[in-house]
């Protein structure tokens, strides 16, 4: 099954018989404190192909691409571009060599316009900015690759899909021949992903090459010509042609075993309504409408999953329910109004919140594990004794949680910034679950975690549901929603556009609704459905 890479022309020492690889890497090693991210990695990208780099979180894919992009320097190994050995000291060198990377987190300046962002870092115009001329050039370039974008718009006003287009344009404007994309569809709805793939195809038709990093098997099989699979810093399959490969093959290469996420889930028997949202509207930080008159009920012992593409109001929904954002309308928890009350009130009513941002909202990085674990309990006995804090109780609590939830940390005094992502999330979940909440709001609970951690988080959520907690699950991972939710609500532009029980939820239908389509439209093409179904099958 393992393909062999074409040897570089240099080895043949004579007239090239095959065209040089667009990019080739050999023996790349990169180490960070405590982690060997790349362990003697080889990689080859052919001209005019779409090549996927597949692996779980932590496998080393981003590190490798960051080396290609000039952001990191390898500790060992060699790089060639178009047969020429290169060594990049900074992203600038990579750009000069024709490589352009679109990161998962966009590197745009929000307050500046599309054109200003594209002009950033270029050599021309050298001194005087000629806005009009550049705007026209940008518009023409976008046209050529079939992308719609307004060159004069300030970036903060653009949707995520549009921002991604700006990132791509940035690279194309610089004449990038090799485009590297890091998890490009993570922030796109299925139909937007289709547009992206079309754009990529038109680029490869011109002879440019594309590498994209992904952890979604279906997408890789549908779009890429070849795939390289990485696991724990090593390459397990190099340049495997996707024709003829199956998801099972890829899964095995990715995790070393067939992974079947089959959660033992007792049928739900929802109890009373715990959370009731009625006619709620609010604006986001930019002052634009984020929620438009939404209504929702969540019952005890039920998981309601909110499926939405990033930026359609789901973050704001979590915030209004947890008292972190004002709104109009009514929100009842256990029958009592909590809209526009303080976060403290909401916490007192038995609402737990696992926030989207675990490092600057969910935890306090320089405080100890103990201090973080008592964050929701410090107002009550036994941790509190009147106005004072009982240090011994706090530590006992922390020790107990550390053991029960298997949080890996040297001591309970360890500063939380030193914890790994998975352990931090375990700590946050431990803290929230221990408050024995009637309602849990979980936002992107498994983002950035490896498969083992994801499984344990899902197990915890199912257990809570069995114990009668009402759970509102907000996630960008459709598979997660499909695996956990009893009922699915689709959000688009601040409204609920579809609601169905889990048995009727289906990727194509959800994808359509998530991008503003209606149920009378044609269902999505099989290719797109396959592309976005990241489900692992035996």
């Amino acid at each position: 099954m393992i393909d062999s890479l074409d040897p570089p022309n240099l080895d043949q020492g004579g007239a090239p018989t095959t065209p040089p690889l667009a990019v080739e890497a050999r023996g790349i090693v990169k180490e960070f404190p405590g982690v060997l991210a790349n362990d003697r990695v080889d990689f080859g990208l052919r001209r005019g192909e779409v090549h996927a780099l597949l692996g779980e979180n932590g496998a080393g894919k981003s590190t490798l691409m960051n080396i290609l992009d000039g952001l990191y320097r390898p500790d060992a190994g060699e790089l060639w571009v178009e047969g020429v050995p290169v060594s990049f000291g900074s992203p600038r060198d990579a750009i000069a060599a024709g490589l352009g990377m679109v990161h998962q987190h966009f590197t745009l300046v929000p307050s500046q316009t599309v054109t200003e962002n594209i002009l950033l870092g270029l050599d021309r115009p050298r001194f005087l900015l000629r806005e009009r001329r550049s705007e026209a050039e940008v518009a023409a370039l976008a046209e050529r690759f079939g992308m719609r974008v307004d060159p004069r718009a300030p970036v903060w006003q653009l949707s995520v899909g549009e921002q991604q287009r700006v990132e791509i344009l940035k690279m194309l404007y610089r004449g990038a021949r090799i485009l590297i994309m890091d998890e490009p569809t993570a922030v796109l709805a299925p139909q937007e992903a289709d547009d992206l793939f079309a754009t990529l195809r038109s680029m490869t038709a011109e002879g440019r090459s594309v590498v994209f990093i992904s952890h979604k098997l279906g997408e890789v099989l549908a779009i890429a010509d070849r795939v390289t699979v990485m696991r724990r810093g090593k390459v397990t399959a190099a340049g495997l042609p996707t024709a003829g490969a199956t998801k099972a093959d890829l899964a095995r290469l990715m995790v070393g075993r067939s992974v079947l996420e089959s959660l033992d889930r007792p049928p739900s028997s929802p109890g009373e309504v715990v959370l009731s949202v009625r006619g709620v509207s609010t604006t986001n930080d930019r002052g634009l409408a984020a929620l438009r008159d939404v209504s929702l009920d969540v019952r005890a012992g039920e998981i309601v999953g909110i499926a939405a593409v990033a930026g359609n109001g789901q973050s704001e929904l979590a915030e209004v329910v947890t008292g972190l954002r004002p709104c109009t309308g009514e929100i009842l928890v256990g029958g009592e109004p909590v809209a526009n009350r303080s976060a403290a009130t909401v916490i007192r009513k038995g609402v737990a919140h696992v926030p989207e941002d675990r490092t600057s909202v969910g935890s306090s990085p320089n405080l100890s594990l103990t201090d973080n674990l008592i964050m929701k309990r410090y107002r009550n006995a036994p941790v509190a004794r009147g106005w004072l804090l009982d240090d011994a109780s706090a530590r006992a609590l922390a020790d107990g949680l550390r053991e029960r939830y298997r949080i890996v940390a040297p001591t309970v005094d360890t500063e939380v910034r030193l914890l790994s992502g998975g352990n931090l999330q375990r700590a946050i979940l431990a803290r929230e679950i221990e408050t024995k909440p009637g309602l849990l709001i979980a936002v992107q609970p498994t983002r950035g975690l490896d498969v083992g951690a994801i499984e344990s988080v899902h197990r915890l959520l199912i257990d809570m549901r069995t114990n009668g907690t009402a759970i509102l699950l907000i996630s960008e991972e459709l598979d997660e929603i499909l695996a956990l939710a009893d009922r699915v609500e689709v959000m688009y532009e601040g409204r609920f556009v579809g609601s169905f029980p889990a048995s009727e939820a289906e990727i194509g239908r959800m994808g359509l609704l998530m991008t503003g389509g209606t149920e009378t439209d044609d269902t999505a093409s099989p290719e797109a459905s396959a592309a976005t179904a990241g489900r692992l099958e035996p």
Partner: protein
Amino acid sequence: MDLGLIAAAGIATGTVLLFAAIGEIFAERAGVLNLGVEGMMLMGAVAGFSTTLSTGNPWLGLLAAMVFGGLLGLLHGVVTIHLRADQVVSGLALTFLGTGLARVLGEGLTNTGAARLPNLTIPLLADLPIVGRIVFSNQSVLVYAGFLLVPLAWFWIERTRPGLHLRAVGESPAAADAQGIGVNALRLAYVVFGGVLAGLAGATITLAVAPGWSGDQTVNGRGWIAIGLVIFARWSPIRAALGAYLFAAITPFILGLQGVQTILGVQNPFLPGQSAGFFLEMLPYLFVIGVVTVGSRSAARRRIGAPAALGIPYVRGERGH
């Protein structure tokens, strides 16, 4: 009370605030908060004055002032950018350092006796009605330099490529870095430049506007006022200039008030010797508080505030904390 004279004096002393404020604008737009302006101005003032005193050449003094200011800026820059120390504390340390050093170096300097920078009268413009007499007659060369600095600074920031990079570095250093822009190098350069201008501001006092050295009183809080002005000006050089001139006109106005026997027919309570004069002295500082409050509210309302990355050291690959 001659309003014309007061306005002319305002323009002159306003130039001091102008240089300091514009220097701070450059530093802050690059993302670095520099609270050491007061110390840098004092160092510039004493360096300029004492160099002029020893060499007899005010231009050398001016150069010395700018060099010292730049050196202090370099210190602040390296400590906050490369060593990632807290910008607020470093700035405060710089103020203490600059103040102390200035006291040490200024020991025994007399009040007068050094040469000063020449004044100029611009030929044609001085004949303009009203404006000519105030703005273009017999003002120091540094005042005219200030006039030129404002549009140049604006143009640089808004209309040139280096200005685009400056703004990007202060708003979104990760984006700038990804485009191959040297974030830390650029920030350091602008912080040093801010220091140079602060030193220049100090020299403007001792070599042009109020020649002589009077210890700590020389600068008397104007460095802090400049920082407040930057907030009020919402980081725009033009608004900063207007604010500087306006603000500087208040002091001579106050002094003028103290010379008048009656105000609106009532006995002037602010005559020197009457202790109520202290309230007049409070006015500039109260004004700064007012100005900063207004500026903060206005910025909050417009959702345009400080450069987004102001005060946060940039480390490639790190997000948030």
